[in-house]
């Protein structure tokens, strides 16, 4: 009976609560607006863009810009749209993600459960590597890729992404495996299992969450990369981010903002899709890489 009095919320509380929701929704609009504008712009024709405003709706759905962005727009030298570069990105991302994830998993497994002299020190050194500004390694890496004969190739880019991605993937797996009890590995060793058998039969089957987190993290990082792409790719091995930047900055005739926006959405689509489908893991990757970075 006494809690009836308690339950009555004051008018002030109600007002505050409404203000809270209004603020949150307004902020949600602010975050969404750029994407909405991009989408609207990509569906307008040049005339509508010139006469209308950012948020004015297109008169009709016009997919001309999308078609052009995909296969006709000029990106620097050629005018084949961003489709070839979109595929380039996949050719870079898929091997780079797979290799860096596998190497990271094995490294994490060693660092947590097969420590040797210096392994902790090495981990600290690797961790520091997560943080260096990549400008410090650009010139030597460019030289090295030249020596190895993979300058301006997809394999060269894959190599670069693996080398600098492994620091993160190792960190993710190490933090995850650190929580796996050491006794599990000890029991398996007494049962007669070796290094790889334990990894494959016992550790890997319980690693699904961290594998998903790592793959998503690496996929997003490498897909969104621009620096390595612009520094180490050739004309026909450019990733989509570089092509997009070229497309936007190519001033061939009149500026077609609708094409720019369509191309930008296309370039963002894979990672956005991953985010929408597996947001939980994406956030976990971000915070894991961050909180324990």
């Amino acid at each position, binding site marked *: 009976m006494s809690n009836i009095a308690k339950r009555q919320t004051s008018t002030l509380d109600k007002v505050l609560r409404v203000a809270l929701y209004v603020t949150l929704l307004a902020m949600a609009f602010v975050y969404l607006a750029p994407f909405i504008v991009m989408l609207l712009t990509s569906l307008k024709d040049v005339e509508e863009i010139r006469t209308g405003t950012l948020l004015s709706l297109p008169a009709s759905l016009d997919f001309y810009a999308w078609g052009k962005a995909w296969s006709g727009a000029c990106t620097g030298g050629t005018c084949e749209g961003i489709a070839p570069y979109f595929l380039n990105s996949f050719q870079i991302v898929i091997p780079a993600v797979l290799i860096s994830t596998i190497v990271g998993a094995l490294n994490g497994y060693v660092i947590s459960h097969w420590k040797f002299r210096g392994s902790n020190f090495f981990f600290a050194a690797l961790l520091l590597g997560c943080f260096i500004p990549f400008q410090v390694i650009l010139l030597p890496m460019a030289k090295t890729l030249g020596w190895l004969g993979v300058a301006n190739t997809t394999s060269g880019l894959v190599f670069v992404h693996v080398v600098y991605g492994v620091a993160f993937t190792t960190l993710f797996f190490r933090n995850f495996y650190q929580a796996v*009890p050491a*006794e599990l590995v*000890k*029991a*398996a060793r*007494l*049962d*007669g299992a070796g290094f790889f058998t334990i990894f494959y039969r016992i550790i890997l089957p*319980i690693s699904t969450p961290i594998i998903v987190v790592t793959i998503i993290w690496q996929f997003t990082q490498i897909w969104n990369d621009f620096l390595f792409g612009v520094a180490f790719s050739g004309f026909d091995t450019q990733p989509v981010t570089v092509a997009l930047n070229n497309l936007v900055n190519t001033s061939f005739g009149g500026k077609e903002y609708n094409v720019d926006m369509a191309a930008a959405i296309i370039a963002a689509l894979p990672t956005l899709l991953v985010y929408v489908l597996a947001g939980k893991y994406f956030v976990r990757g971000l915070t894991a890489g961050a909180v324990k970075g």
Partner: protein
Amino acid sequence: MANLVIENVKKRYGQNEILKGINISIETGEFLILVGPSGCGKSTLMNSIAGLEEVSDGRIMIDGQDVTFASPKDRDIAMVFQSYALYPNMTVAENISFGLEMRKVPKEEREKEVSRVADMLQIGHLLKRKPAQLSGGQRQRVAMGRALARRPKMYLFDEPLSNLDAKLRVEMRTEIKKLHQKLGTTIVYVTHDQIEAMTLADRIAVMKDGEVQQLGTPQEIYDDPANLFVAGFMGSPAMNFIPAQVVEQNGVCALSLKTQSNVVLPFPKPDALSGHLGQTVLLGLRPEMITEPQPHKEGLEFVVKADIEVEVTEPMGADTMIVTRIENAEVNCRSNPAYSAQPGDTIAMMFDTSKAVVFDCETEERLDK
């Protein structure tokens, strides 16, 4: 089945010496219990025996064979961990047969072995479950099953029952004892539980700071502790340590202390005290040796009555602990619950020193060895 010899084993982590020269040898079929405060190196010693940690110095032999640097899988040892360490992605049956699979035992034999072990431990109905679907007691049984399936030469148990509730712990204790009697295998077993140690062990090794303080049968450890640490560690409530002065009475050495009045207690080995006449020593007297006056003990050689002041009483069911203070040391006395007393009362108690021991105040070593 095997015997185990541990010779001067040392283990260092960096500058820290965790094991400082351990010497233990265990006969085939023996049940050895390791006890000691947490952090004293029990698990490290177990891991060294199993080959999971490489020792820094010394030698480990199993069945006369030097295995100091053999890999764990070649030692044919099974271990049960406090956390059970069941493989979470495998069913109970797979957990039990994993070790056999690794040793390339054919499938039919593995299945036979799994059902044998499951029958022995009554876990047949759990075989298809994953560890996450088991209760603590069931997990414990599976962990034992995994160890049993391989029929190893030797078992290591590292606090296997610590995560169980009291009732289950007693049940499993009995079961482990039965298993040992039935299989007759060599077992090294770490525990925190006094009763577990006393009931299960053929011999007990008491460890402290990486050193074995005493190795002996449970009764030896209990009645004849090597030093103050062992005396205080084994037994619950712990042995009382009362400062007492060595005096001469009727031509033999005895111990004088002050309760409500001055008391002189005779000592079974007075000669051991003769070198300390006039000095203060620590008298070690177990609580059950200070009781209410019992008529049948009246007049026995080492029994003396004295008055004490009751500080606290702690009824424990079968007995009541009466806590008093003698020479500024807290002293527990075990009395019949019927012998009621209130805090502040002065009552008569009977001191039986027939099993008393004395320690040097400084070195904490036994004086009457």
